Protein backbone atom coordinates (compact mmCIF):
# COMPACT_ATOMS: atom_id res chain seq x y z
CA UNK A 1 0.00 0.00 0.00
CA UNK A 2 2.44 2.62 -1.18
CA UNK A 3 0.49 5.32 -2.87
CA UNK A 4 -3.18 5.01 -2.24
CA UNK A 5 -5.59 5.75 -5.00
CA UNK A 6 -8.10 8.54 -5.10
CA UNK A 7 -11.20 6.48 -5.32
CA UNK A 8 -11.37 3.99 -8.08
CA UNK A 9 -9.46 4.96 -11.14
CA UNK A 10 -11.80 3.06 -13.33
CA UNK A 11 -14.81 5.14 -12.34
CA UNK A 12 -12.95 8.35 -13.00
CA UNK A 13 -11.69 7.08 -16.31
CA UNK A 14 -15.20 6.03 -17.31
CA UNK A 15 -16.61 9.44 -16.45
CA UNK A 16 -13.84 11.16 -18.40
CA UNK A 17 -14.23 8.86 -21.38
CA UNK A 18 -17.98 9.44 -21.33
CA UNK A 19 -17.50 13.22 -21.36
CA UNK A 20 -14.96 13.13 -24.16
CA UNK A 21 -17.03 10.56 -26.00
CA UNK A 22 -20.05 12.81 -25.74
CA UNK A 23 -18.17 15.75 -27.21
CA UNK A 24 -16.76 13.65 -30.02
CA UNK A 25 -20.16 12.13 -30.75
CA UNK A 26 -21.73 15.59 -30.87
CA UNK A 27 -19.03 16.82 -33.22
CA UNK A 28 -19.34 13.79 -35.48
CA UNK A 29 -23.11 14.00 -35.54
CA UNK A 30 -23.13 17.78 -35.95
CA UNK A 31 -24.59 17.77 -39.47
CA UNK A 32 -27.40 15.52 -38.27
CA UNK A 33 -28.20 17.53 -35.18
CA UNK A 34 -27.86 21.14 -36.23
CA UNK A 35 -30.82 22.92 -37.68
CA UNK A 36 -28.94 25.82 -39.14
CA UNK A 37 -25.92 26.49 -41.28
CA UNK A 38 -23.22 27.51 -38.80
CA UNK A 39 -21.98 30.21 -41.18
CA UNK A 40 -25.41 31.59 -42.11
CA UNK A 41 -25.96 35.06 -40.72
CA UNK A 42 -29.29 36.43 -39.67
CA UNK A 43 -30.97 33.08 -39.10
CA UNK A 44 -32.16 34.67 -35.90
CA UNK A 45 -32.05 38.03 -34.19
CA UNK A 46 -28.55 39.16 -33.22
CA UNK A 47 -27.34 38.36 -29.71
CA UNK A 48 -30.52 36.58 -28.70
CA UNK A 49 -30.38 34.39 -25.64
CA UNK A 50 -31.18 30.69 -25.68
CA UNK A 51 -34.64 29.87 -26.97
CA UNK A 52 -36.61 27.04 -28.53
CA UNK A 53 -35.48 28.04 -32.02
CA UNK A 54 -31.89 28.66 -31.01
CA UNK A 55 -30.95 26.35 -28.17
CA UNK A 56 -27.85 28.23 -27.25
CA UNK A 57 -28.89 31.61 -28.60
CA UNK A 58 -27.33 33.56 -31.44
CA UNK A 59 -24.19 35.65 -31.89
CA UNK A 60 -23.79 39.24 -33.04
CA UNK A 61 -24.33 38.24 -36.67
CA UNK A 62 -27.48 36.34 -35.83
CA UNK A 63 -25.80 32.97 -36.40
CA UNK A 64 -27.04 29.96 -34.51
CA UNK A 65 -24.64 29.30 -31.66
CA UNK A 66 -25.64 25.69 -31.20
CA UNK A 67 -24.69 24.93 -34.79
CA UNK A 68 -21.45 26.86 -34.37
CA UNK A 69 -20.47 25.10 -31.17
CA UNK A 70 -21.19 21.73 -32.78
CA UNK A 71 -19.22 22.53 -35.91
CA UNK A 72 -16.55 24.26 -33.84
CA UNK A 73 -16.14 20.98 -32.05
CA UNK A 74 -15.39 19.32 -35.35
CA UNK A 75 -12.59 21.78 -36.07
CA UNK A 76 -11.17 21.83 -32.58
CA UNK A 77 -11.37 18.11 -31.89
CA UNK A 78 -10.19 17.05 -35.32
CA UNK A 79 -7.26 19.45 -35.22
CA UNK A 80 -6.38 18.31 -31.70
CA UNK A 81 -6.68 14.65 -32.58
CA UNK A 82 -4.55 15.01 -35.70
CA UNK A 83 -1.91 17.01 -33.87
CA UNK A 84 -1.93 14.56 -31.01
CA UNK A 85 -1.60 11.53 -33.27
CA UNK A 86 1.42 13.17 -34.82
CA UNK A 87 3.21 14.08 -31.59
CA UNK A 88 2.42 10.77 -29.94
CA UNK A 89 3.75 8.68 -32.79
CA UNK A 90 6.79 10.84 -33.52
CA UNK A 91 7.64 11.35 -29.86
CA UNK A 92 7.22 7.73 -28.88
CA UNK A 93 9.23 6.44 -31.80
CA UNK A 94 12.05 8.93 -31.33
CA UNK A 95 12.19 8.19 -27.62
CA UNK A 96 12.23 4.45 -28.16
CA UNK A 97 14.87 4.72 -30.87
CA UNK A 98 17.09 6.86 -28.69
CA UNK A 99 16.73 4.43 -25.81
CA UNK A 100 17.58 1.55 -28.09
CA UNK A 101 20.66 3.26 -29.53
CA UNK A 102 21.87 4.33 -26.10
CA UNK A 103 25.31 5.81 -25.33
CA UNK A 104 26.10 9.37 -26.34
CA UNK A 105 23.05 9.79 -28.57
CA UNK A 106 20.88 8.87 -25.64
CA UNK A 107 22.59 11.28 -23.30
CA UNK A 108 22.38 14.20 -25.73
CA UNK A 109 18.81 13.42 -26.62
CA UNK A 110 17.89 13.31 -22.97
CA UNK A 111 19.17 16.85 -22.50
CA UNK A 112 17.24 18.03 -25.53
CA UNK A 113 14.06 16.35 -24.33
CA UNK A 114 14.46 17.86 -20.88
CA UNK A 115 14.85 21.30 -22.37
CA UNK A 116 11.96 20.97 -24.77
CA UNK A 117 9.70 19.52 -22.12
CA UNK A 118 10.32 22.48 -19.91
CA UNK A 119 9.89 24.92 -22.77
CA UNK A 120 6.60 26.76 -22.65
CA UNK A 121 4.42 25.61 -25.52
CA UNK A 122 2.57 28.87 -25.47
CA UNK A 123 5.69 30.90 -26.14
CA UNK A 124 6.71 28.93 -29.20
CA UNK A 125 3.21 29.00 -30.56
CA UNK A 126 3.02 32.70 -29.83
CA UNK A 127 6.25 33.45 -31.65
CA UNK A 128 5.31 31.35 -34.63
CA UNK A 129 1.83 32.74 -34.87
CA UNK A 130 2.96 36.30 -34.33
CA UNK A 131 5.56 36.05 -37.03
CA UNK A 132 3.82 33.89 -39.58
CA UNK A 133 0.38 35.31 -39.14
CA UNK A 134 -2.42 33.94 -37.03
CA UNK A 135 -4.14 30.76 -38.08
CA UNK A 136 -5.08 27.50 -36.51
CA UNK A 137 -2.45 25.70 -38.58
CA UNK A 138 0.35 28.00 -37.45
CA UNK A 139 -0.76 27.77 -33.85
CA UNK A 140 -0.77 23.99 -34.05
CA UNK A 141 2.61 23.94 -35.76
CA UNK A 142 4.01 25.96 -32.88
CA UNK A 143 2.54 23.51 -30.44
CA UNK A 144 3.88 20.52 -32.32
CA UNK A 145 7.45 21.78 -32.31
CA UNK A 146 7.51 21.35 -28.56
CA UNK A 147 4.87 18.82 -27.70
CA UNK A 148 6.48 15.71 -29.10
CA UNK A 149 9.26 15.98 -26.55
CA UNK A 150 7.29 14.82 -23.50
CA UNK A 151 6.40 11.67 -25.37
CA UNK A 152 9.96 11.12 -26.46
CA UNK A 153 11.19 11.61 -22.94
CA UNK A 154 8.55 9.34 -21.49
CA UNK A 155 9.02 6.56 -23.99
CA UNK A 156 12.79 6.80 -23.68
CA UNK A 157 12.72 6.32 -19.94
CA UNK A 158 9.98 3.69 -20.13
CA UNK A 159 11.84 1.68 -22.72
CA UNK A 160 14.95 1.81 -20.64
CA UNK A 161 13.22 0.76 -17.43
CA UNK A 162 11.18 -1.84 -19.24
CA UNK A 163 14.35 -3.41 -20.62
CA UNK A 164 15.78 -3.47 -17.11
CA UNK A 165 12.70 -5.12 -15.61
CA UNK A 166 13.38 -8.60 -14.26
CA UNK A 167 10.89 -10.08 -16.68
CA UNK A 168 12.66 -8.45 -19.62
CA UNK A 169 16.02 -9.61 -18.33
CA UNK A 170 14.60 -13.07 -17.87
CA UNK A 171 13.18 -13.01 -21.37
CA UNK A 172 16.56 -12.00 -22.75
CA UNK A 173 18.22 -14.78 -20.79
CA UNK A 174 15.72 -17.19 -22.27
CA UNK A 175 16.72 -16.07 -25.72
CA UNK A 176 14.01 -13.60 -26.71
CA UNK A 177 15.02 -11.40 -29.63
CA UNK A 178 14.66 -7.65 -30.04
CA UNK A 179 11.17 -7.78 -31.49
CA UNK A 180 9.85 -10.16 -28.88
CA UNK A 181 11.22 -7.86 -26.18
CA UNK A 182 9.56 -4.86 -27.80
CA UNK A 183 6.29 -6.62 -28.36
CA UNK A 184 5.88 -8.39 -25.04
CA UNK A 185 8.06 -6.56 -22.54
CA UNK A 186 8.23 -2.95 -23.69
CA UNK A 187 4.94 -2.25 -25.39
CA UNK A 188 2.64 -3.29 -22.51
CA UNK A 189 4.63 -1.08 -20.19
CA UNK A 190 4.61 1.78 -22.68
CA UNK A 191 1.02 1.98 -23.80
CA UNK A 192 -0.61 2.91 -20.49
CA UNK A 193 1.67 5.77 -19.54
CA UNK A 194 1.67 7.07 -23.11
CA UNK A 195 -2.09 7.08 -23.07
CA UNK A 196 -2.10 9.01 -19.81
CA UNK A 197 0.30 11.54 -21.23
CA UNK A 198 -1.72 11.77 -24.42
CA UNK A 199 -4.82 12.63 -22.43
CA UNK A 200 -2.91 15.22 -20.42
CA UNK A 201 -1.37 16.76 -23.50
CA UNK A 202 -4.67 16.73 -25.38
CA UNK A 203 -6.15 18.77 -22.59
CA UNK A 204 -3.19 21.12 -22.72
CA UNK A 205 -3.40 21.34 -26.50
CA UNK A 206 -7.03 22.40 -26.40
CA UNK A 207 -6.21 24.91 -23.71
CA UNK A 208 -3.29 26.40 -25.62
CA UNK A 209 -5.16 26.62 -28.91
CA UNK A 210 -8.11 28.21 -27.18
CA UNK A 211 -5.76 30.55 -25.35
CA UNK A 212 -4.05 31.63 -28.55
CA UNK A 213 -7.37 32.15 -30.24
CA UNK A 214 -8.41 34.14 -27.23
CA UNK A 215 -5.48 36.48 -27.82
CA UNK A 216 -6.60 36.68 -31.44
CA UNK A 217 -3.64 34.61 -32.55
CA UNK A 218 -5.25 31.26 -33.19
CA UNK A 219 -8.06 30.25 -35.47
CA UNK A 220 -9.44 33.29 -37.22
CA UNK A 221 -12.99 34.36 -37.77
CA UNK A 222 -15.29 33.43 -39.28
CA UNK A 223 -14.29 29.83 -38.72
CA UNK A 224 -16.39 28.22 -36.06
CA UNK A 225 -13.69 27.09 -33.70
CA UNK A 226 -14.13 27.07 -29.94
CA UNK A 227 -11.17 29.29 -29.18
CA UNK A 228 -12.13 31.79 -31.86
CA UNK A 229 -15.70 31.77 -30.59
CA UNK A 230 -14.43 32.45 -27.09
CA UNK A 231 -12.49 35.42 -28.35
CA UNK A 232 -15.53 36.78 -30.12
CA UNK A 233 -17.57 36.20 -27.02
CA UNK A 234 -15.13 37.73 -24.59
CA UNK A 235 -16.31 41.21 -25.45
CA UNK A 236 -19.84 40.26 -24.54
CA UNK A 237 -18.95 38.45 -21.34
CA UNK A 238 -21.54 40.49 -19.45
CA UNK A 239 -23.98 41.77 -22.00
CA UNK A 240 -24.42 38.35 -23.65
CA UNK A 241 -22.68 35.76 -21.53
CA UNK A 242 -24.09 32.85 -23.50
CA UNK A 243 -21.61 33.73 -26.24
CA UNK A 244 -18.73 32.72 -24.01
CA UNK A 245 -20.53 30.11 -21.99
CA UNK A 246 -21.44 27.84 -24.90
CA UNK A 247 -17.91 27.33 -26.30
CA UNK A 248 -16.44 27.84 -22.83
CA UNK A 249 -18.42 24.96 -21.43
CA UNK A 250 -17.53 22.86 -24.47
CA UNK A 251 -13.84 23.48 -23.82
CA UNK A 252 -14.30 22.93 -20.11
CA UNK A 253 -16.15 19.65 -20.56
CA UNK A 254 -13.59 18.34 -23.04
CA UNK A 255 -10.63 19.34 -20.94
CA UNK A 256 -12.31 18.02 -17.81
CA UNK A 257 -13.08 14.75 -19.58
CA UNK A 258 -9.53 14.36 -20.79
CA UNK A 259 -8.14 15.22 -17.37
CA UNK A 260 -10.46 12.72 -15.70
CA UNK A 261 -9.38 10.09 -18.20
CA UNK A 262 -5.76 10.80 -17.47
CA UNK A 263 -6.32 10.73 -13.72
CA UNK A 264 -8.32 7.54 -13.87
CA UNK A 265 -5.77 5.82 -16.05
CA UNK A 266 -3.06 7.03 -13.75
CA UNK A 267 -4.83 5.43 -10.80
CA UNK A 268 -5.30 2.18 -12.66
CA UNK A 269 -1.69 2.06 -13.76
CA UNK A 270 -0.59 3.02 -10.31
CA UNK A 271 -2.45 0.09 -8.90
CA UNK A 272 -0.85 -2.17 -11.44
CA UNK A 273 2.46 -0.90 -10.14
CA UNK A 274 3.42 0.81 -13.37
CA UNK A 275 5.30 3.98 -13.89
CA UNK A 276 3.02 6.97 -14.06
CA UNK A 277 4.02 9.96 -16.12
CA UNK A 278 3.73 13.40 -14.68
Amino acid at each position, binding site marked *: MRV*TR*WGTGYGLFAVGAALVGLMVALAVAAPLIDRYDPAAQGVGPALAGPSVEHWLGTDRFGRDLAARVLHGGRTTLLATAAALALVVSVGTLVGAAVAAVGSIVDRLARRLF*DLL*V*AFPVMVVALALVG*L*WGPSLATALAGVLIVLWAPFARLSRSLVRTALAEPSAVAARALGAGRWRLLRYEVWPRLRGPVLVLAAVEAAQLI*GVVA*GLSFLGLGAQPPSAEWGAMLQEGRAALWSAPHLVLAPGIAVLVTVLGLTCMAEGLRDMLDRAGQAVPE
Partner: protein
Amino acid sequence: MADRRAWTRAAAVVARGVATAAGLLLVASMLVFALVRAAPGDAVDVEFGESGASALLSPEEEAAARAQRARELGLDRGVPEQYARWLDRVVRLDLGTSFRTGRPVVDELGDRVAASAALGGAGFLVALGSAWLIASLSARRPGGPLDHALRLLSLAATAVPTFLLGSLGLRYAADWFGYPVAGEASWRRLWLPAVVLGVGAMPVVARLLRASLISEYGRPYALAARARGASPARLTFRHVMRPAFAPLLTLAGLTLSSLVAASVITEVIFSWPGVSEYAVSAISAKDYPVVQAYLLLVVAVVVVVNRAMDVLQHLLDPRVAHAADVAA
Protein backbone atom coordinates in the same frame (compact mmCIF):
# COMPACT_ATOMS: atom_id res chain seq x y z
CA MET B 1 31.67 17.09 6.45
CA ALA B 2 28.66 15.65 4.78
CA ASP B 3 27.74 19.20 3.99
CA ARG B 4 30.95 19.80 2.16
CA ARG B 5 30.46 16.66 0.14
CA ALA B 6 27.04 17.85 -0.82
CA TRP B 7 28.39 21.22 -1.88
CA THR B 8 31.18 19.61 -3.86
CA ARG B 9 28.73 17.42 -5.67
CA ALA B 10 26.50 20.41 -6.27
CA ALA B 11 29.47 22.32 -7.68
CA ALA B 12 30.22 19.47 -10.04
CA VAL B 13 26.61 19.48 -11.13
CA VAL B 14 26.76 23.22 -11.69
CA ALA B 15 29.90 22.89 -13.78
CA ARG B 16 28.39 20.13 -15.90
CA GLY B 17 25.21 22.15 -16.09
CA VAL B 18 26.87 25.32 -17.28
CA ALA B 19 28.58 23.50 -20.11
CA THR B 20 25.44 21.79 -21.35
CA ALA B 21 23.43 24.94 -20.80
CA ALA B 22 25.83 26.93 -22.94
CA GLY B 23 25.58 24.35 -25.70
CA LEU B 24 21.83 24.28 -25.51
CA LEU B 25 21.63 28.05 -25.56
CA LEU B 26 23.78 28.23 -28.67
CA VAL B 27 21.60 25.72 -30.48
CA ALA B 28 18.51 27.48 -29.22
CA SER B 29 19.80 30.86 -30.38
CA MET B 30 20.24 29.55 -33.91
CA LEU B 31 16.75 28.11 -33.89
CA VAL B 32 15.37 31.33 -32.51
CA PHE B 33 17.11 33.39 -35.14
CA ALA B 34 16.05 31.10 -37.94
CA LEU B 35 12.48 31.05 -36.71
CA VAL B 36 12.26 34.80 -36.43
CA ARG B 37 13.95 35.59 -39.73
CA ALA B 38 12.11 32.99 -41.74
CA ALA B 39 8.81 34.73 -41.07
CA PRO B 40 7.26 36.83 -43.83
CA GLY B 41 7.52 40.60 -43.67
CA ASP B 42 9.88 42.66 -41.57
CA ALA B 43 9.97 45.68 -39.34
CA VAL B 44 10.30 48.05 -42.28
CA ASP B 45 7.09 46.72 -43.79
CA VAL B 46 5.33 47.23 -40.50
CA GLU B 47 6.67 50.74 -40.04
CA PHE B 48 5.77 51.88 -43.52
CA GLY B 49 2.40 50.23 -43.24
CA GLU B 50 1.72 52.20 -40.09
CA SER B 51 3.12 55.59 -40.97
CA GLY B 52 1.35 55.77 -44.30
CA ALA B 53 4.33 57.54 -45.79
CA SER B 54 3.79 55.53 -48.94
CA ALA B 55 0.74 57.61 -49.79
CA LEU B 56 2.95 60.68 -49.98
CA LEU B 57 5.95 59.21 -51.77
CA SER B 58 6.53 58.05 -55.28
CA PRO B 59 7.33 54.34 -55.61
CA GLU B 60 10.99 55.13 -56.23
CA GLU B 61 11.19 57.39 -53.22
CA GLU B 62 9.46 54.81 -51.10
CA ALA B 63 11.83 52.07 -52.23
CA ALA B 64 14.80 54.31 -51.45
CA ALA B 65 13.37 55.20 -48.06
CA ARG B 66 12.72 51.56 -47.27
CA ALA B 67 16.22 50.57 -48.29
CA GLN B 68 17.59 53.37 -46.16
CA ARG B 69 15.61 52.21 -43.15
CA ALA B 70 16.57 48.57 -43.74
CA ARG B 71 20.21 49.66 -43.80
CA GLU B 72 19.73 51.50 -40.52
CA LEU B 73 18.28 48.39 -38.95
CA GLY B 74 20.92 46.13 -40.44
CA LEU B 75 18.32 44.16 -42.34
CA ASP B 76 20.05 44.58 -45.69
CA ARG B 77 22.68 41.97 -44.89
CA GLY B 78 22.41 38.23 -45.36
CA VAL B 79 20.75 36.30 -42.58
CA PRO B 80 23.91 34.34 -41.62
CA GLU B 81 25.84 37.57 -41.35
CA GLN B 82 23.07 39.12 -39.29
CA TYR B 83 23.20 36.08 -37.03
CA ALA B 84 26.95 36.28 -36.60
CA ARG B 85 26.78 39.96 -35.73
CA TRP B 86 23.92 39.38 -33.38
CA LEU B 87 25.62 36.47 -31.63
CA ASP B 88 28.80 38.48 -31.34
CA ARG B 89 26.90 41.18 -29.52
CA VAL B 90 24.85 38.79 -27.43
CA VAL B 91 27.90 37.13 -25.91
CA ARG B 92 28.92 40.60 -24.83
CA LEU B 93 25.47 40.91 -23.23
CA ASP B 94 24.33 43.46 -25.80
CA LEU B 95 20.95 42.42 -27.08
CA GLY B 96 20.76 45.24 -29.60
CA THR B 97 18.31 48.10 -29.78
CA SER B 98 14.62 47.92 -30.32
CA PHE B 99 13.52 48.80 -33.83
CA ARG B 100 10.49 50.54 -32.48
CA THR B 101 11.85 52.65 -29.66
CA GLY B 102 15.52 52.80 -30.51
CA ARG B 103 16.32 51.95 -26.91
CA PRO B 104 18.69 49.14 -25.93
CA VAL B 105 16.69 45.96 -25.53
CA VAL B 106 18.41 45.29 -22.24
CA ASP B 107 16.97 48.53 -20.85
CA GLU B 108 13.59 47.84 -22.34
CA LEU B 109 13.44 44.40 -20.81
CA GLY B 110 15.03 45.41 -17.54
CA ASP B 111 12.15 46.44 -15.37
CA ARG B 112 9.77 44.22 -17.30
CA VAL B 113 11.80 41.25 -16.28
CA ALA B 114 11.42 42.38 -12.69
CA ALA B 115 7.67 42.73 -13.12
CA SER B 116 7.43 39.31 -14.75
CA ALA B 117 9.62 37.72 -12.13
CA ALA B 118 7.49 39.25 -9.39
CA LEU B 119 4.36 37.92 -11.00
CA GLY B 120 5.87 34.50 -11.70
CA GLY B 121 7.32 34.27 -8.21
CA ALA B 122 4.08 35.31 -6.57
CA GLY B 123 2.16 32.90 -8.78
CA PHE B 124 4.55 30.13 -7.87
CA LEU B 125 4.14 30.88 -4.18
CA VAL B 126 0.36 30.87 -4.52
CA ALA B 127 0.58 27.56 -6.38
CA LEU B 128 2.94 26.05 -3.86
CA GLY B 129 1.02 27.32 -0.85
CA SER B 130 -2.37 26.16 -2.09
CA ALA B 131 -0.86 22.87 -3.28
CA TRP B 132 0.73 22.27 0.10
CA LEU B 133 -2.57 22.98 1.82
CA ILE B 134 -4.54 20.72 -0.49
CA ALA B 135 -1.96 17.96 -0.52
CA SER B 136 -1.51 17.82 3.23
CA LEU B 137 -5.27 17.83 3.80
CA SER B 138 -5.71 15.09 1.18
CA ALA B 139 -2.84 12.97 2.44
CA ARG B 140 -4.22 13.00 5.94
CA ARG B 141 -6.91 10.53 4.97
CA PRO B 142 -6.30 9.19 1.44
CA GLY B 143 -9.51 8.05 -0.18
CA GLY B 144 -11.55 9.93 2.39
CA PRO B 145 -14.35 12.37 1.52
CA LEU B 146 -12.09 15.41 1.93
CA ASP B 147 -9.55 13.82 -0.38
CA HIS B 148 -12.20 13.27 -3.04
CA ALA B 149 -13.60 16.76 -2.67
CA LEU B 150 -10.16 18.33 -2.99
CA ARG B 151 -9.42 16.18 -6.01
CA LEU B 152 -12.57 17.39 -7.71
CA LEU B 153 -11.48 20.92 -6.93
CA SER B 154 -8.11 20.27 -8.53
CA LEU B 155 -9.69 18.74 -11.61
CA ALA B 156 -11.98 21.72 -11.97
CA ALA B 157 -9.05 24.11 -11.59
CA THR B 158 -7.24 22.29 -14.39
CA ALA B 159 -10.20 22.54 -16.70
CA VAL B 160 -11.00 26.23 -16.28
CA PRO B 161 -9.10 28.16 -18.94
CA THR B 162 -6.76 30.87 -17.63
CA PHE B 163 -8.31 33.55 -19.78
CA LEU B 164 -11.80 32.88 -18.49
CA LEU B 165 -10.65 32.95 -14.90
CA GLY B 166 -8.60 36.08 -15.60
CA SER B 167 -11.39 37.95 -17.36
CA LEU B 168 -13.91 37.09 -14.68
CA GLY B 169 -11.49 37.94 -11.90
CA LEU B 170 -10.61 41.27 -13.45
CA ARG B 171 -14.20 42.24 -13.93
CA TYR B 172 -15.33 41.48 -10.41
CA ALA B 173 -12.20 42.78 -8.74
CA ALA B 174 -12.59 46.05 -10.62
CA ASP B 175 -16.25 46.30 -9.66
CA TRP B 176 -15.95 45.26 -6.06
CA PHE B 177 -12.59 46.43 -4.83
CA GLY B 178 -11.76 49.09 -7.39
CA TYR B 179 -8.91 46.91 -8.60
CA PRO B 180 -6.79 48.99 -11.03
CA VAL B 181 -7.41 47.41 -14.42
CA ALA B 182 -4.20 48.81 -15.88
CA GLY B 183 -1.16 50.56 -14.64
CA GLU B 184 2.34 49.98 -13.44
CA ALA B 185 3.49 46.89 -11.60
CA SER B 186 2.59 47.38 -7.97
CA TRP B 187 1.67 45.29 -4.97
CA ARG B 188 -1.86 46.51 -5.27
CA ARG B 189 -2.07 45.02 -8.73
CA LEU B 190 0.03 41.94 -8.17
CA TRP B 191 -2.25 39.73 -6.14
CA LEU B 192 -4.98 39.09 -8.68
CA PRO B 193 -2.87 37.89 -11.63
CA ALA B 194 -0.74 35.97 -9.14
CA VAL B 195 -3.80 34.13 -7.91
CA VAL B 196 -4.95 33.43 -11.47
CA LEU B 197 -1.49 32.12 -12.34
CA GLY B 198 -1.20 30.14 -9.14
CA VAL B 199 -4.55 28.46 -9.47
CA GLY B 200 -3.60 27.24 -12.92
CA ALA B 201 -0.32 25.73 -11.78
CA MET B 202 -1.65 24.36 -8.50
CA PRO B 203 -3.27 21.04 -9.51
CA VAL B 204 -0.13 19.44 -10.93
CA VAL B 205 1.93 20.43 -7.91
CA ALA B 206 -0.79 19.33 -5.49
CA ARG B 207 -1.11 15.93 -7.10
CA LEU B 208 2.59 15.23 -6.97
CA LEU B 209 2.95 16.54 -3.46
CA ARG B 210 0.03 14.49 -2.26
CA ALA B 211 1.38 11.28 -3.77
CA SER B 212 4.80 12.09 -2.42
CA LEU B 213 3.48 12.77 1.07
CA ILE B 214 1.39 9.62 1.16
CA SER B 215 4.28 7.58 -0.08
CA GLU B 216 6.66 9.04 2.49
CA TYR B 217 4.16 8.63 5.35
CA GLY B 218 3.95 4.95 4.44
CA ARG B 219 7.68 4.33 4.44
CA PRO B 220 9.30 2.27 7.19
CA TYR B 221 11.25 5.23 8.48
CA ALA B 222 8.06 7.17 9.11
CA LEU B 223 6.66 4.18 10.90
CA ALA B 224 9.82 3.83 12.94
CA ALA B 225 9.75 7.51 13.83
CA ARG B 226 6.20 7.18 15.09
CA ALA B 227 7.18 4.08 17.00
CA ARG B 228 9.86 6.15 18.70
CA GLY B 229 7.11 8.47 19.84
CA ALA B 230 7.22 11.28 17.26
CA SER B 231 4.05 13.40 17.24
CA PRO B 232 2.18 13.93 13.94
CA ALA B 233 3.61 17.44 13.60
CA ARG B 234 7.15 16.26 14.30
CA LEU B 235 6.66 13.39 11.88
CA THR B 236 5.54 15.76 9.15
CA PHE B 237 8.01 18.56 9.59
CA ARG B 238 11.12 16.79 10.85
CA HIS B 239 10.93 13.50 9.03
CA VAL B 240 8.66 13.47 6.01
CA MET B 241 8.71 16.98 4.59
CA ARG B 242 12.20 17.14 3.20
CA PRO B 243 12.08 13.86 1.28
CA ALA B 244 8.54 14.66 0.14
CA PHE B 245 9.56 18.00 -1.30
CA ALA B 246 12.58 16.71 -3.17
CA PRO B 247 10.75 15.13 -6.12
CA LEU B 248 8.75 18.31 -6.42
CA LEU B 249 11.83 20.13 -7.62
CA THR B 250 12.07 18.05 -10.76
CA LEU B 251 8.58 19.24 -11.46
CA ALA B 252 9.70 22.83 -11.17
CA GLY B 253 10.63 22.94 -14.84
CA LEU B 254 7.15 21.93 -15.85
CA THR B 255 5.60 24.28 -13.37
CA LEU B 256 7.79 27.06 -14.66
CA SER B 257 6.80 26.32 -18.21
CA SER B 258 3.12 26.35 -17.36
CA LEU B 259 3.65 29.57 -15.44
CA VAL B 260 5.38 31.23 -18.39
CA ALA B 261 2.68 30.00 -20.74
CA ALA B 262 -0.10 31.19 -18.50
CA SER B 263 1.68 34.48 -17.89
CA VAL B 264 1.44 35.31 -21.59
CA ILE B 265 -2.32 35.37 -21.27
CA THR B 266 -2.37 36.74 -17.76
CA GLU B 267 -0.07 39.64 -18.52
CA VAL B 268 -2.14 40.63 -21.52
CA ILE B 269 -5.44 40.42 -19.68
CA PHE B 270 -4.20 42.30 -16.65
CA SER B 271 -2.07 44.74 -18.68
CA TRP B 272 0.81 43.67 -16.49
CA PRO B 273 3.96 45.38 -17.77
CA GLY B 274 5.97 42.19 -18.00
CA VAL B 275 8.10 40.66 -20.70
CA SER B 276 5.34 38.49 -22.14
CA GLU B 277 3.00 41.39 -22.65
CA TYR B 278 5.86 43.30 -24.23
CA ALA B 279 6.78 40.37 -26.44
CA VAL B 280 3.24 40.02 -27.73
CA SER B 281 3.34 43.59 -29.03
CA ALA B 282 6.94 43.30 -30.24
CA ILE B 283 6.13 40.18 -32.19
CA SER B 284 3.35 41.85 -34.12
CA ALA B 285 5.66 44.79 -34.88
CA LYS B 286 8.39 42.39 -36.08
CA ASP B 287 10.73 44.05 -33.65
CA TYR B 288 13.38 41.40 -34.20
CA PRO B 289 15.88 42.35 -31.53
CA VAL B 290 13.15 42.31 -28.92
CA VAL B 291 11.59 39.06 -30.13
CA GLN B 292 14.97 37.36 -30.26
CA ALA B 293 15.88 38.65 -26.84
CA TYR B 294 12.57 37.48 -25.44
CA LEU B 295 12.82 33.99 -26.86
CA LEU B 296 16.41 33.70 -25.76
CA LEU B 297 15.46 34.94 -22.33
CA VAL B 298 12.79 32.29 -22.01
CA VAL B 299 15.19 29.58 -23.13
CA ALA B 300 17.80 30.83 -20.71
CA VAL B 301 15.35 31.00 -17.84
CA VAL B 302 14.12 27.50 -18.59
CA VAL B 303 17.64 26.12 -18.78
CA VAL B 304 18.91 27.99 -15.76
CA VAL B 305 15.92 27.25 -13.57
CA ASN B 306 16.05 23.57 -14.40
CA ARG B 307 19.75 23.42 -13.70
CA ALA B 308 19.25 25.37 -10.50
CA MET B 309 16.56 22.94 -9.48
CA ASP B 310 18.98 20.07 -10.08
CA VAL B 311 21.47 21.72 -7.78
CA LEU B 312 18.83 22.50 -5.22
CA GLN B 313 17.69 18.94 -5.34
CA HIS B 314 21.21 17.76 -4.71
CA LEU B 315 21.31 19.93 -1.65
CA LEU B 316 17.84 19.09 -0.42
CA ASP B 317 18.17 15.40 -1.10
CA PRO B 318 21.80 14.31 -1.18
CA ARG B 319 20.61 10.82 -2.08
CA VAL B 320 20.18 12.02 -5.64
CA ALA B 321 23.83 12.95 -5.88
CA HIS B 322 24.74 9.70 -4.22
CA ALA B 323 22.76 7.71 -6.75
CA ALA B 324 24.27 9.75 -9.58
CA ASP B 325 27.78 9.08 -8.30
CA VAL B 326 27.17 5.37 -8.13
CA ALA B 327 25.59 5.27 -11.54
CA ALA B 328 28.25 7.38 -13.19
